[in-house]
């Protein structure tokens, strides 16, 4: 089970309790640079909770998270994002009060410089920065295949396109790591294929992904490494082949999946 490579994210003995519920129970794993890591598990397994801890939205009851060598436990979400970690949401969080391209331009916030005063006085650098960021946003939209919708109101996009928009917004931040919470949910076959291509392409460009997904076909096809949660506990970890052969995993998760679907 030893993987080669440089560790980008370390989740170390993370536990999260909500009152009596232990949503995440002593979970540890590493994510290597350039890897696509899937977190799988039945509904309520604690996947989203884990994401919320890694991105700083929730504080863990115990344990630490390290990103690019720095301890980020207890840091604010925006500080973690500024270090180069962005995410998408299981329940969409598109900026519905903006156009599609403005959503993506907002994603580029952390790499821009304009301050309140500079913006108000519209000093020459602002104009240049705006133009550059708009072009960059357009490229991000092209990558996910919705560039033709750039000037629509984000609110008017169908569900699948809003998912793609969230991914374009996350890419625009030029992060080192992207967390995707059920990116395929609500996408049709065509859109899912497109998204898989996008993820694989971006990985080639050096990005690292951690994603939660229920669609096992996609998980098995694109993941380098899989972490399996059940009831907050990590019950298995390994390559897709290893996971497929892991009896505990098949019993707890894959078996159930078959009966559910």
């Amino acid at each position, binding site marked *: 089970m030893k993987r080669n490579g440089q560790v980008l994210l370390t989740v170390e003995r993370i536990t999260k309790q909500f009152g009596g519920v232990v949503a995440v129970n002593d979970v540890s794993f590493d994510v290597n640079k350039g890897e696509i890591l899937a977190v799988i598990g039945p509904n309520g397994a604690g996947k989203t909770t884990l994401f919320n801890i890694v991105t700083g939205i929730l504080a863990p009851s115990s344990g630490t998270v390290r990103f690019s060598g720095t301890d980020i436990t207890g840091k604010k979400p*925006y500080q973690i994002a*500024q270090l180069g970690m962005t995410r998408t949401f299981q329940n969409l969080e598109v900026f519905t009060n*903006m156009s599609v391209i403005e959503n993506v331009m907002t994603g580029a916030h952390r790499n821009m410089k304009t301050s309140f005063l500079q913006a108000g006085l519209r000093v020459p650098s602002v104009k240049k920065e*705006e133009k550059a960021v708009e072009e960059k946003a357009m490229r991000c939209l092209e990558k996910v295949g919705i560039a033709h919708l750039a000037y629509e109101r984000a609110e008017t996009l169908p569900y699948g396109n809003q998912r793609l928009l969230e991914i374009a917004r996350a890419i625009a931040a030029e992060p080192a790591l992207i967390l995707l919470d059920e990116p395929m949910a609500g996408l049709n076959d065509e859109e899912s294929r497109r998204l898989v291509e996008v993820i694989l392409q971006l990985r080639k460009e050096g990005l690292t992904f951690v994603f939660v997904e229920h669609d096992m076909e996609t998980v098995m096809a694109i993941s380098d490494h899989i972490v399996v949660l059940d009831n907050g506990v990590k019950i298995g970890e390994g390559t897709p082949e290893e996971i497929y052969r892991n009896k505990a995993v098949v019993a707890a998760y894959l078996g159930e999946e078959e009966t559910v679907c």
Partner: protein
Amino acid sequence: MHERRLGTWLFALGILLFPLIVHSNYLLSILIMIGFYSLVCNGLTMLMGYAGQISLGHAAFYGIGAYTTAYLSATHGWSPWLSIIAGAIISAFIAFIVGIPTFKLKGHYLALATLGFGVIVYTCFKEFTSITGGMNGFFGIPSIKLFAWEFSNDARFYYLIWIVVFLSLLFSQNIIHSRVGRALRSIEGSEAASDAVGIDIMRYKLQVFVYSAICASIAGSLYAHYVTFINPQAFDAMLSIYFLIMVITGGASSIWGAVIGSSVFVLLSELLKEVVPLVFSNAGGEFEIVFFGVLLVVMLIYMPNGLTAAWKKITGKWRTSTTLSPAAKGGGGR
């Protein structure tokens, strides 16, 4: 030419020409009043419409601007220009200090906290009689001079206030179409997603709150130099609520909403002053409160995004403006 710039310059032209066409001092004085309120609402629109944060305490900053400039210019003989700037700095500082704990709150709690702030400041105006003159008011505020030019009559003051309004609208418009404007709007859109792309929400809430306080403070200062007499009643909680009504009437998501809302408010209250005594011979100011209260409720039910949004809907345009429209980009798109 950009459509949004075109609108701005047409607006400027209208402002410039108005006194040359209309010679009524009464109408000019109404437009000056609209100017004060437009300046306040311009800042408030950025706070409420773009960042989605309510304030029911902006009469306080209007008052702090008025009393600071009154005290420094009348009592200590400062140049009004300097005392207006001093007022703005004090308001900015107070907004910053008050904002830090206040913006940890959301929704109703934020509304109540800002309302409370307004009441406290109002009480200070009433009680610190050695500086403010208390309920007797503050008399003899000097008028503003630029070299030998004194802004003492309505026509001159009209230009002064509207130049300031125009500059502040330009400033706001520049903010909106920038990294900062998107950060502000993202807060209203989804705080979770703002966080996720690395936007320091608290910082932007504070910045826009301070900006709105500065706008209100300058408006209040100019008001003080215009009327030359102020008393605490001009800055009570009711005024904060009227500001809210103006912003909502105009439409909190367009900077033109500030001017439109202020105009509608001032014109309606002038109309009420004429009409009400004809209908109810013994009615006082309470009628105005009831009327605007009802207006607020009706607006929130039927036009929650205000008149500018209703107008844009009619003309088939959007509520929020994009940075660049495809047309302006020459077909943009893909």
